[in-house]
């Protein structure tokens, strides 16, 4: 893997201020708003509203972060999957003779290098609020915090890869975002609820992420599957879109 290509990808994304701001708003902004609003209710009427922190509220915040974080990841992934093509720069990079596959593969670590600090910042902020606003409520231990963090990072990073691969295939950011949000918010939950589909619902991303979720809560599917099956499904959700995106990148007319 070419370190300079990865650095170039990071530079391109990092300098896109509007994008970075929106990603931060959707992640850190969302959990901050959740805790501050809940704490505001608590301060306003502590008899009826408990403190905003503590284990239960923390996991409510995590559910919000996993959903909005996935939306943010979709926005970022589609940007990376399409920006070179839509800006026309792809052609100018291809004429250098560099392998298109190398160009494509360098985006994955570049993308993660930008995404991980964003999602981790949001998670750290949520953790801080969890303790700061806990009051007399139980808080999570270190192990649970790490497990929950890994889950949020995994769920959103998978959304990131799916978005990048699909965007590279479709070549249009808007269409890809539409398809992914439609899938994530409407089609996937609908398919998950159709019991006649039986075990075939295990291939849904929602089912697999629900299976590896380290805590209960949230409406993230009702299908039971083995942990190994869930991990295989998750890996497929990463590998297949990335492979399709790679194929399209190497074969498209520049």
């Amino acid at each position, binding site marked *: 893997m*070419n370190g*300079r*290509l990865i*650095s*170039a990808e990071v*530079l*391109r994304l990092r*300098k*896109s*201020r509007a994008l970075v701001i929106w990603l931060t708003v959707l992640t850190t902004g969302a959990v901050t708003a959740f805790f501050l609003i809940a704490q505001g209710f608590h301060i306003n009427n502590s008899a009826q509203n408990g403190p905003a922190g503590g284990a239960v509220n923390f996991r409510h915040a995590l559910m919000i972060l996993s959903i909005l974080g996935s939306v943010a990841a979709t926005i970022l992934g589609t940007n990376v999957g399409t*920006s070179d093509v839509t*800006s*026309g*720069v792809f*052609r*100018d*990079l*291809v*004429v*250098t*003779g*560099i*392998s298109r596959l190398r*160009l494509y593969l360098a985006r994955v670590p570049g993308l993660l290098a930008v995404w991980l600090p964003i999602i981790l910042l949001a998670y750290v902020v949520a953790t801080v609020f969890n303790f700061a606003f806990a009051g007399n409520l139980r808080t999570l231990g270190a192990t649970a915090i790490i497990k929950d963090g890994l889950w949020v990072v995994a769920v959103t990073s998978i959304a990131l890869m799916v978005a990048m691969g699909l965007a590279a295939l479709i070549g249009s950011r808007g269409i890809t975002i539409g398809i992914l949000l439609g899938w994530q918010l409407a089609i996937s939950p609908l398919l998950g609820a159709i019991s006649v589909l039986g075990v075939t619902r295990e291939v849904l991303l929602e089912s697999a992420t629900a299976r590896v979720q380290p805590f209960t809560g949230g409406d993230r599917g009702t299908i039971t599957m083995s942990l190994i099956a869930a991990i295989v499904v998750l890996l497929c959700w990463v590998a297949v879109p990335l492979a399709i995106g790679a194929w399209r990148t190497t074969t498209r*007319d*520049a």
Partner: protein
Amino acid sequence: MAEAAQGHSLVIETSGLTKRFGERTAVDHADLQVPAGVAFGFLGPNGAGKTTLIRVLLGLTAATEGEMKILGMPVPARRHEALARVGAIVEEPRFHGHLTGRENLVVAAACRDAAAESRIGPSLERVGLTDRADERVKSYSMGMRQRLGIARCLLADPELLILDEPTNGLDPAGIIEFREFVRSIVDDGRTVFLSSHLLDEVEKICDMAAIVDHGKILMAGTVAEIAAGGQPTISVGVDDPTLAERVLLDHPAVAESGEIAGGLRLVLADSSNAAVADITRKLVEAGVGVYRVEPARVTLEERFLEVTSRLGTDE
């Protein structure tokens, strides 16, 4: 640099190169040889297949059939090696608008060899963009983008520059500047292959040219050879062009005649000395004052129009 360029006698070589889009043939069995160390014009009207041939050469789209070599290396087999020493701008140069000029070059340099990054400063300097290099590209004018595109090409320390319609969007001062830049590049021992539909530009910038139309390469050679390759033509300075044209109407050595300022322009069917002398004699005997007979300078434009219109007639 010059040493590298001299390593190959031909920097571009195609044989039977063809590109079809469905039923349409954009490049039709093109045989092209571009020697090293020259400015080579690839001349043709809009839609002639110039950009498509360049896109095929650069691997932006696959050839339907035929063979090609760049810097002596077969492509696509050794595309990576060949293009490592090629700088190219296809249509107009594109950039990430939110990045500065310098940052855009950093992104491009990442695709080149490790030394490319050290060439960013000198490349910017060469195209006169050092002072504006840290401004975002979205604030650049078309001319500045073109120059930044050239700077991006120079990151490769290229033996060959391929420029597709490079003067599009440039103002007259920019065009003159560009012309000087191309000559300076050629003086370095590099080769510049530029496509254009602007005949005047090719005539002023290039040493050699090829004329392409309907995807076919119709002729190639030095600009002077191409211009001279038509039917022999003379201009005759006379005091009464109308009478002169009437006198020569049925002359067997004159294929075509037309009035020009102060005389006639004659396309000859027979350009021997005897035929020219006979034409002159006939004019003098008819009372026409002849004060000048000389070969007419045929411009590249005239040859271009002659060649491309002939193709249209054939079809």
